[in-house]
């Protein structure tokens, strides 16, 4: 079945607009690596201030690009797998709100009125329109799930006893997690920050806003990852020439993410005052449990790749490795998913360091953190978005991918770049170099009294890696633009667009992982159990602070914007 025509247009817009914004995000990523190494030794370059560009890099790459991609992939998957038309008006309203919110926030950032980074911690204060833009964007992203639910319920009624297709499980999990975790941040933005920035309230409870932010901030990480997980469990085995090793593993993994995504944000606040070590400890335990679905995924995907390799003639203990489609034009999507998976191994391991309570003392807020999340968000998530977007855009427009060879170089080049980049930043993190800092001005400046020659190596590795990553982006956009300009392929004209979906190899029947409701219910209870005490303490004892500060002025904000 072909997707509805209007839905195809909406999906294309939701992929192309954020990718266009991402050109700036990528450009400034490369610049940041240069600022850090002291190659650019200035507070601004080409009209954009370092922290202004850093804010745009974070908001565009980590929030706008990721959310739009999840929505677009969700629409394509749910409609295809349930073989049902979806609400066009819902999709349209959602897209308009998300685009409107993005534009509002982006304009404020580029006007220099919101250089508060994507964490926007008060009492740093941005322009009210920045907060409003974020709120409108989030509300827009809530709509798709609620329009899919009735379609899904009808499908279940019409298909009694049938398993929900894995792709639908993956996309519903993505948006259930998103719905749960965005409620607190919507409260923070709409109830705390927006009225405060308008001068309507005298202040905000800073610890409460930090805690609400991280209630959102960590599940956000899983929201980034889950669409890629969905592609790993459905597309990767098929592209490798095999089947998904275990149907149970996929369903269990998604349900585990519903359960565990939210009640663990405090592990971002290990270094915060005002939260007891007991609360921090409880959420440490919950955080480490996330390793279970992740390790199970690692095993299941490796086993699925092995099935593919053996189907393609690979033999012996390791012989099947040689038979995977690492560089085959008609399976150009494979390396995007495969390289992301390899990068993610290192992202996962370093994430366990961050989550391990007292070990966080060594690396908290150092450049270890960006090193880590450029191996998760910048690895599997980003490559999934690039590959998935190119696949959907060309597929929906019935165009060929022009130069699949160049398209396949992108993920390998990106992988090499991120490994060099992150190795440098890991090294510096262990030596205490701070994250989010224009280091070239002081720490990497031989003329400054704060010069740290021992941070030179890491910062320069970061720059070399960052440039390679930038080059990979240039190649990707070359392929994308050439494909957009190509004439539609007549051979594709009558082939309906379809995302590749694997069959299961072991099709276990475990009723416990086939129903969302119990998992969502327990997840909500876990959130209450994990957050009740710290939030009660913070609300009762946290100080309502005085006025806000704009990033360029140490004197408090006096006047209303």
């Amino acid at each position, binding site marked *: 079945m072909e997707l509805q025509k209007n839905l195809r247009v909406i999906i294309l817009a939701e992929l192309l607009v954020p990718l266009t914004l991402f050109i700036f995000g990528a450009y400034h990523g490369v610049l940041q690596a240069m600022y850090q190494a002291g190659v650019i030794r200035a507070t601004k370059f080409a009209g954009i201030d370092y922290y202004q560009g850093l804010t745009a890099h974070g908001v565009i790459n980590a929030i706008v690009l990721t959310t739009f991609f999840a929505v677009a992939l969700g629409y394509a998957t749910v409609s295809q797998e349930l073989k049902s038309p979806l609400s066009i008006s819902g999709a349209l309203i959602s897209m308009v709100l998300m685009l409107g919110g993005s534009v509002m926030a982006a304009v404020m950032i580029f006007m220099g009125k919101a250089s508060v980074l994507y964490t926007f911690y008060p009492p740093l204060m941005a322009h009210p329109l920045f907060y409003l833009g974020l709120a409108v964007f989030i509300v827009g992203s809530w709509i798709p799930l609620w329009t899919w639910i009735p379609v899904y319920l009808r499908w279940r009624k019409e298909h009694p006893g049938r398993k929900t297709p894995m792709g639908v499980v993956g996309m519903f999990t993505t948006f259930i997690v998103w719905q749960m975790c965005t409620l607190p941040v919507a409260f923070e933005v709409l109830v705390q920050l927006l009225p405060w920035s308008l001068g309507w309230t005298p202040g905000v409870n800073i610890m409460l806003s930090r805690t609400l932010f991280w209630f959102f901030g960590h599940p956000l990480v899983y929201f980034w990852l889950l669409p890629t997980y969905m592609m790993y469990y459905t597309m990767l085995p098929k592209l490798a020439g095999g089947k998904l090793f275990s149907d149970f593993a996929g369903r269990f993994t998604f349900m585990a993410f519903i359960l565990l995504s939210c009640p663990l944000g405090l592990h971002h606040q290990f270094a915060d*005052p005002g939260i007891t070590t007991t609360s921090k400890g409880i959420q440490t335990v919950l955080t480490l449990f996330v390793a279970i679905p992740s390790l199970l995924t690692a095993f299941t995907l490796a086993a699925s790749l092995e099935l593919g390799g053996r189907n393609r003639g690979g033999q012996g203990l390791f012989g099947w490795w040689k038979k995977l489609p690492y560089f085959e034009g008609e399976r150009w999507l494979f390396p995007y998913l495969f390289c992301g998976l390899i990068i993610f191994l290192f992202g996962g391991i370093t994430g366990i360091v961050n989550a391990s309570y007292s070990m966080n003392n060594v690396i908290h807020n150092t450049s270890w953190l960006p090193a880590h999340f450029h191996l998760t968000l910048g690895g599997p998530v980003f490559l999934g978005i690039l590959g998935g977007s190119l696949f959907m855009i060309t597929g929906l427009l019935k165009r060929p991918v022009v130069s699949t060879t160049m398209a396949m170089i992108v993920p390998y080049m990106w992988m090499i770049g991120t490994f060099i980049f992150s190795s440098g930043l890991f090294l510096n993190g262990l030596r205490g170099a701070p994250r989010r800092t224009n280091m070239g*001005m002081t720490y990497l400046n031989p003329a400054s009294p*704060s010069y740290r020659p021992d941070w030179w190596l890491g910062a320069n590795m970061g720059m070399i890696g960052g440039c390679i990553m930038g080059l990979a982006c240039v190649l990707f956009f070359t392929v994308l633009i050439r494909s957009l300009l190509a004439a539609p392929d007549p051979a594709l004209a009558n082939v309906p667009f379809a995302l590749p979906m694997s069959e299961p190899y072991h099709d276990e029947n475990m009723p416990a992982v086939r129903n969302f409701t119990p998992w969502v219910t327990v997840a909500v209870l876990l959130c209450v159990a994990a957050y009740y005490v710290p939030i009660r303490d913070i609300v009762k004892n946290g*100080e309502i602070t005085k006025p806000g500060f704009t990033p360029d002025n*140490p004197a408090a904000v006096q006047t209303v914007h």
Partner: protein
Amino acid sequence: MAINILEKRALMGAVAFVMLSLALTAYATWGLGINVASCIPLGTKPFEEASVVKHDGNIYEVHYVTRMWAFEPNVLRVPTGSTLDIYAMSKDVTHGLEIAGTNVNLMVVPGAVASGRVRFNKPGIYSMVCHEFCGKGHENMNARIEVVDGLNDFAVEGLPSSPGMKLMDSKGCLACHSIDGSAGVGPTFKGAWGSTVKMTDGSTRKLDEGFFSDMVQHPTVYSVDGFAPVMPEIQLSADEMKQMEDYLKELKK
């Protein structure tokens, strides 16, 4: 159909891995005694001024004040083998306080007091770094702890001393204007008094009582060449104005 035996083993392996991680974390916390930032109850009234107090047994209690974009005290010198009990508060936004190469790694959130403890067994210069974005001067916000062999007592630099300096500190002037000649958001105060200042419109003015008073009252009207016109208006009494002028004259030397 039951779960495949290999899949089951993988699941057990994952559970075992998590248990091992938890056991190691518990050992690090209780066995080795390395905990995360301890909890000064919220609502504890933060201190207002930086200070260092020497206690028995080579223990120093240090109250750090953090603000855009400096730590007070800026330099702290202590003998090798000292233990520092560190408390930190913020006068404005959220800052970070990390002593590179140690386990002291704190968020300094306004309205709360952060605390940590560190023992310095090796002499050397330790960087204290602000690792949370705190505004455009963030990369300038750092301090030093110098651990020196054979020292009898501690010494500090960068604490407000004269009344004029205290006043400038409390009004926030020193966040942008350095007193040691280093670069900042605004021009340095070191040697500034009596010097000739080039304005954005190309004219020049001498920094004397008249220009100082103009600048304090109408900072957006008089913009100095090479600096962004971001200075806020500051309300000062005649007495306060005089104290600041005296301090600027002192810095001329």
